[in-house]
């Protein structure tokens, strides 16, 4: 049983902290502009798509936990090796490693683009990415508990942003939601699929599971985390659908930030600038957890110290950000990544669960 992960008690985290981990990994850059992507598919019924994908994510998580419980102290990488054997298992692990890395990269470039379009058009890409990467390196080297701590604080410090939606609510018109369920069912499902890029993140559960102290109690925090995320997306999409008129929404690239741009305080003229800067807090756990998950995958295959890994990883990412500059490039990365992520996050767990069950039956 070489795939068993032995975690020292002082490295473990409490089950309730998984709530923050799941929630903060889900909320990231996707929320900035997911509205128009779903709107293109399911029009004024876009909020049904959010609801559908929210429910589906709950189902997937149930399957994930069932799989993980079959192999008590394994993470996904270990289970892959157990189920498929070392070679095929490692091959899948490499794919998963790249998936986590691309997720990291995509969060980074999306955030950089937002900073550049909204606040500092002249600020160079390498500067923002170097700053963020240094922050990630620092957090990552602190270990999992520090990363989880970051996601806890990220949630606590950024949760209030959702209440700012009250301001655009004054301009919204509920009429735009009618007639309800005009779109075809298949379009709603398409919209739900288009949500993938925004809702993924809970697959981190696959990796973090062995590090949880009281594994029996993990269900509640995970589902609450998903629920809070889904409700948040639901609130944002409902406000967006009523605040913008149809064509206007499909032309707005970062609808959430545009929602914020109507907010004005006597002491703060442009609230969205604050929001964009504040978003760094929200994406930090995203970045840290994805790079941590990538590292977990790599250590199972080759021997590399965390320090070496993170510096190498950061350098490669920094280099890659030089090549990605335009909106079109970033958009196509998001699209392709969203497509692939759909299969990795929503389809693969089901497949894995069935195979693990079959394998267990055969060997016993």
């Amino acid at each position, binding site marked *: 049983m070489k795939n068993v992960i032995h975690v020292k008690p002082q490295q473990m985290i409490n089950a309730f902290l998984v709530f923050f981990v799941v929630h903060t990994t889900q909320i990231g850059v996707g929320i900035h502009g997911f509205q128009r992507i779903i709107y293109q598919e399911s029009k004024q019924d876009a909020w049904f798509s959010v609801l559908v994908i929210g429910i589906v994510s709950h189902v997937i998580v149930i399957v994930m936990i069932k799989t993980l419980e079959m192999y008590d102290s394994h993470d996904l990488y270990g289970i892959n090796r157990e189920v498929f054997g070392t070679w095929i298992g490692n091959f899948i692990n490499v794919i998963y490693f790249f998936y986590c890395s691309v997720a990291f990269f995509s969060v980074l470039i999306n955030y950089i683009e937002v900073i550049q379009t909204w*606040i500092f058009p002249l*600020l160079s890409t390498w500067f923002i990415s170097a*700053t963020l990467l240094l922050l990630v390196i620092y957090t990552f080297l602190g270990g999992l508990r520090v990363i989880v701590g970051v996601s806890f604080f990220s949630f606590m410090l950024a949760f209030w942003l959702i209440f700012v939606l009250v301001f655009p609510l004054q301009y919204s018109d509920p009429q735009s939601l009618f*007639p309800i369920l005009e779109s075809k069912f298949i379009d709603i499902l398409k919209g739900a699929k288009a949500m993938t890029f925004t809702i993924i993140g809970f697959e981190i559960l696959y990796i973090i599971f062995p590090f949880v102290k009281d594994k029996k109690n993990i269900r509640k925090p995970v589902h609450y985390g998903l629920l809070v995320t889904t409700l948040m997306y639901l609130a944002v999409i409902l406000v967006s659908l009523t605040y913008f008129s149809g*064509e*206007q929404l499909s032309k707005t690239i970062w609808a959430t930030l545009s929602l914020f*741009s109507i907010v*004005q305080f006597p002491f703060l*003229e442009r609230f969205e600038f604050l929001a964009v800067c504040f978003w760094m807090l929200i994406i930090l756990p995203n970045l840290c957890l994805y790079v941590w998950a990538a590292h977990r995958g790599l250590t199972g295959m080759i021997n590399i110290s965390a320090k070496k890994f993170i510096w190498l990883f950061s350098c490669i990412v920094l280099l890659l950000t030089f090549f990605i500059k335009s909106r079109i490039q970033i958009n196509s990365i998001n699209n392709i990544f969203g497509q692939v992520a759909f299969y990795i996050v929503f389809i693969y767990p089901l497949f894995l669960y069935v195979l693990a069950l079959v394998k267990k039956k055969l060997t016993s």
Partner: protein
Amino acid sequence: MIKKLGLVILSLTLLIGGCAEQKLLEKIGLITLAGYDLNEDGKVVTTAVIRQVDPEFQSMVTTSSAVNDSSLGALTEINRKTTKKLMQGQMRITLFGETLATEGIGSFLNTLSKNSSTSSGILLAMTAGNAKELLEYPYKNINDVGQEIYKLIEQNVDAELVTSSTLHEVSQDYYSVGRDMIIPIIERKEEVIEVTGVALFNKDKLVGQLPAKDSFYLLLIRGKFKSGKFETTIPGDIFSSNQSDSSEPVPVVLDTISSTKKLKLTDKNVPEFELQINLNGRILELDAEMDFDNPVEIEKLEKAINQSLTEELKSILDYCQEINSDVFGLGKQYRSQVRNSKLTHESWHAKYPTAKVNIKINFKILRSGVFE
């Protein structure tokens, strides 16, 4: 040692590279207002009101204009004429000249929405005639014409005398199917600037105007109205106590305290709508003898008010249908009630002129002041 050196180099590069573009207040000119006109050659004339802050003197307000094909191109032109770098971040108002509005302002709305340095809360207005003339007139009592116009419109919006015309709200209508946008009209009257009316659009083109007093009805139907004053006239012969010239119309000033609006599509083939408006309010001024303790009298008065409101509303509606500008959002209601209507701007505007609206107004007098 090497580690420390590395850290020093790293932090230095970050420090140097991290200097974003500086915008010192002394070195920039803040555009507080931009006005756009169309000249005879079809080019855009941009007039900017620029506020320059000087720590030693009072801040200076100047207007400057340029002619160019595009709105932002003209801004570069203006920049050539000023000593300071122009910034749009403090822009509060955008004005459109009448000729430009007739030609269409869609591309301007698009450009303004695209620009991340301007907020979506900036106000839009149309000038009767030329924006440039209005801005460049040497007003005796107005120091900062940009601020003046902004305060004028903001105050009127707050008092619910004109519709709020923030960029967001206007483009919400512009991009929607089934509601046309409206923006207030301002005009120079001698030494003062005042709100004189409402400009009605079809898609992005100006097609008609209503006097400022009619904004009340527009506000009422568009569903943003909460409370406000308005004036109407009722026939004089309803007052039994009135002796002589009974047929003369009597002006009455009312103040609504609360209002509800219900718009419903009753027949989608005509299309026919039912508009029910309930108003609760008080009488502020009534130029006739009247017994406010008599319920029969009150009812008569309410009836007369309802009658006159309905008539005025009807005439506004007829006018809007005539110029084919659906500022009431009937199309929006149609779209939200008819399944799979696949409504487009064109298909709705083919139906709209013949749409029927049955107006039912119910005004209830709650109070009539402290003195009878």
